[in-house]
C-alpha cells in the first residue's frame, strides 16, 4: 500500500513542504467535530504558529495541538511559517495539562522548520520552554499520539512530540535539523542538500527502523495534496487503531510506555558501572 516508494528522500522533503499539503486545520475539519480553539499561553502572548483546542473524535473529546502553516504566503507570514516562539510551546503545555486534568487524549500534529530563532524568543526562554514540554509530556497521564504531517525539524518539532505513538504520513520527514541547515553546519555548503537528505535517514520508513515512528500512514501517489480525501481516510484508520489500543492502558501504564519508548532510543545495556 505504499504508493511513494520510488521517491528519493529529497523528493519527499519537497512534498512534505508542499504549500497545498493538508495542514492541521484541514485535518481538524475533516477528521474531527465541534472544534473549540483555545488561544494564548495565558502568561504573555498568543503565538499563531501553534494551533490548538478541544474537539471530538468519533464523539470522544480530545485535545488537538499542531504547528500551523498556511496555504498562501500571507497566511504563512501570519503563522510565522510554523516556527513557534516560547509562548507557543507554553500554550501547548497549557492545553496538554488541561487535557490531562479532564482525561482527554492528546493528538499533536507536527509540521515545522524548527523553533523560531529570534531575539525575543531567546529572551523569553526558547530552550527552557522546549525543555519543560519534553519533561512534562513524559509524565502526562493520558494517551498522547503525534502525527508528523509535513516536516518535523529539531527541538521545535520534538517539543510537542513526546508521545506514546508517533505516526508519520508516508512523505513526511523528521530530522535533527533541516537538510539545508545540516549541510551548512557539516560542510559549510547548504547546496549539498540532496546528499544531506540521503544521509540523514529522515523519511517515515527510515524512522520506523530507528524506533521513532510506530506506523506509516500511506499517502496517495504523488503526495497527500493530490487526493486529500484518501489521505484523511488512511489517517483516520491508523489514528483510530492506535487510540483504541492506548485507551485500554491505565495512566501509569501510559507514562511507563511513553518513557520506555524514548529510553530505548540509543540504549546501551552492557557497559559497566563502576561502583563507589
Amino acid at each position: 500500500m505504499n504508493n511513494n516508494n520510488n521517491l528519493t528522500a529529497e523528493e519527499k522533503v519537497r512534498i512534505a513542504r508542499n504549500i497545498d499539503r493538508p495542514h492541521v486545520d484541514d485535518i481538524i475539519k475533516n477528521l474531527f467535530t465541534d472544534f473549540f480553539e483555545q488561544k494564548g499561553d495565558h502568561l504573555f502572548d498568543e503565538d499563531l504558529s501553534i494551533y490548538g483546542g478541544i474537539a471530538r473524535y468519533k464523539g470522544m473529546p480530545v485535545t488537538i495541538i499542531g504547528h500551523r502553516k498556511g496555504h498562501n504566503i500571507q497566511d504563512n507570514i501570519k503563522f510565522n511559517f510554523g516556527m513557534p516562539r516560547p509562548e507557543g510551546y507554553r500554550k501547548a503545555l497549557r492545553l496538554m495539562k488541561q487535557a490531562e486534568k479532564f482525561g482527554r487524549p492528546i493528538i499533536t500534529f507536527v509540521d515545522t522548520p524548527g523553533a523560531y530563532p529570534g531575539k525575543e524568543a531567546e529572551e523569553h526562554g526558547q530552550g527552557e520552554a522546549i525543555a519543560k514540554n519534553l519533561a512534562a509530556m513524559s509524565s502526562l497521564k493520558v494517551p498522547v499520539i503525534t502525527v508528523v504531517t509535513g516536516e518535523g525539524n529539531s527541538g521545535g518539532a520534538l517539543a510537542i512530540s513526546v508521545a506514546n505513538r508517533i505516526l508519520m504520513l508516508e512523505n513526511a520527514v523528521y530530522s535533527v535539523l533541516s537538510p539545508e541547515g545540516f549541510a551548512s553546519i557539516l560542510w559549510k555548503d547548504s547546496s549539498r542538500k540532496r546528499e544531506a537528505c540521503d544521509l540523514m535517514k529522515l523519511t517515515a520508513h527510515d524512522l520506523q527502523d530507528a524506533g521513532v515512528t510506530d506506523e506509516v500512514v500511506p499517502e496517495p501517489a504523488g503526495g497527500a495534496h493530490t487526493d486529500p480525501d484518501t489521505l484523511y481516510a488512511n489517517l483516520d484508520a491508523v489514528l483510530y487503531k492506535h487510540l483504541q489500543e492506548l485507551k485500554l492502558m491505565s495512566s501509569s501504564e501510559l507514562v511507563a510506555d511513553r518513557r520506555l519508548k524514548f529510553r530505548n532510543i540509543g540504549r546501551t545495556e552492557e557497559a559497566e558501572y563502576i561502583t563507589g
Partner: protein
Amino acid sequence: MKSKVNYQAKDLLRDSSFELRAHKDAAGTILPTIMNPEFIDCPSCKRRALRSAWEKNLFACPNCGKLKPIGGYYRLSLILDKGSFKEMDYDMTVSDPLGFPGYAEKVAAQEKKTGLKEAVITATGKIGGIPVVTVVLDSRFFMGSMSTIVGEKVTRAIEVATSRKLPLIIFSASGGARMQEGIYSLMQMAKTAAAIEAFSESGGLYISYLTHPTTGGVTASFATLGDITLAEPGALIGFAGPRVIEQTINAKLPKGFQRAEYLESHGFVDKIVPRNEMRDTLIDILRLHVTNTKNENKGFSVVKNNE
C-alpha cells in the same frame, strides 16, 4: 536500572589516576597555544600574566577575568572531595547509528587529541562529605555536542541518582546536536528530559551549572530543568546560536546577548558563580537540602576546603 558491579584492578588504577588526568586537563588548557610557558597572553584583553597566576586563578584571566574553557576532569577536581571520584561508564564509546561517512575517522582524531571517549564524564563523588552524582560535558570533544552516547550516559547517571537518592549536579557545555547522529541525537533530548522528570518526581535535588557555551539541544533539555540553575560568568547560553539569530532577524544583537549575566537579568538563572566559589556554593546549597538526613543527625562535619 541494572548496574553491574565489576571492580577490577584496572578500575582501581583509574581512580588513583584521577589526579593525574585532572592535572593533564589543566595543563592542556593553555599549553598547546603558547610559545613561552612562563607567560600567557589573554585572548580577550591581550594582556600578559604569569602562568602560575593563571593557574592560581583557575584559568580565569588575572587581568580581565575572562575564562578559558577547562577540561572535565580538571573541573571535577575543583569540586569533589579528594579521593571520592568514581567514574561511571567510562568505557562507553561513540556509536555511529547512521553509519555516517567520515564520522569514525573524526571520532578517532578527537579521541587522540583529548584522551576522551565521548563528550561527557559521569561520576559519583562527594562534595563536602555529601555523596552526589555529577555529570560534566567536555567542550573539547566534538564541542560537547549531544550524541547518542552522551544522552545515554547522562540518562544512566540520572537513573543512578534516582535509585540511590543522591543529589545530581550537571555541568553543561554544548555546541548543540551531534549532526552525524541525526535523529538519534535529537531523541536524546526527550530521553534525558524524561529521566530528569522521573528524578524530580522522586524528590531529588538537581543543580544545573551552565558553562560556556551551552546551546541547542542541551539547553532545550536537561540543562534548563534544574531546581537550582547556576551559570559561569560570561558563558554563552541559548537555544539558537547568535549568528543564526542575526541572519534571521537581519539585525545586530545587543552587547552581552545570551551571556550568563543577560540570562540572569531576564529571569533564567538563580546565580552567577565564579569558578573559585563553585565548590563552596555547591556545599551551601547541598547543606540546605540534606538537613534531617542521617548524615546531619550524626553531626556530620562538612569540610569546605578542598585541600
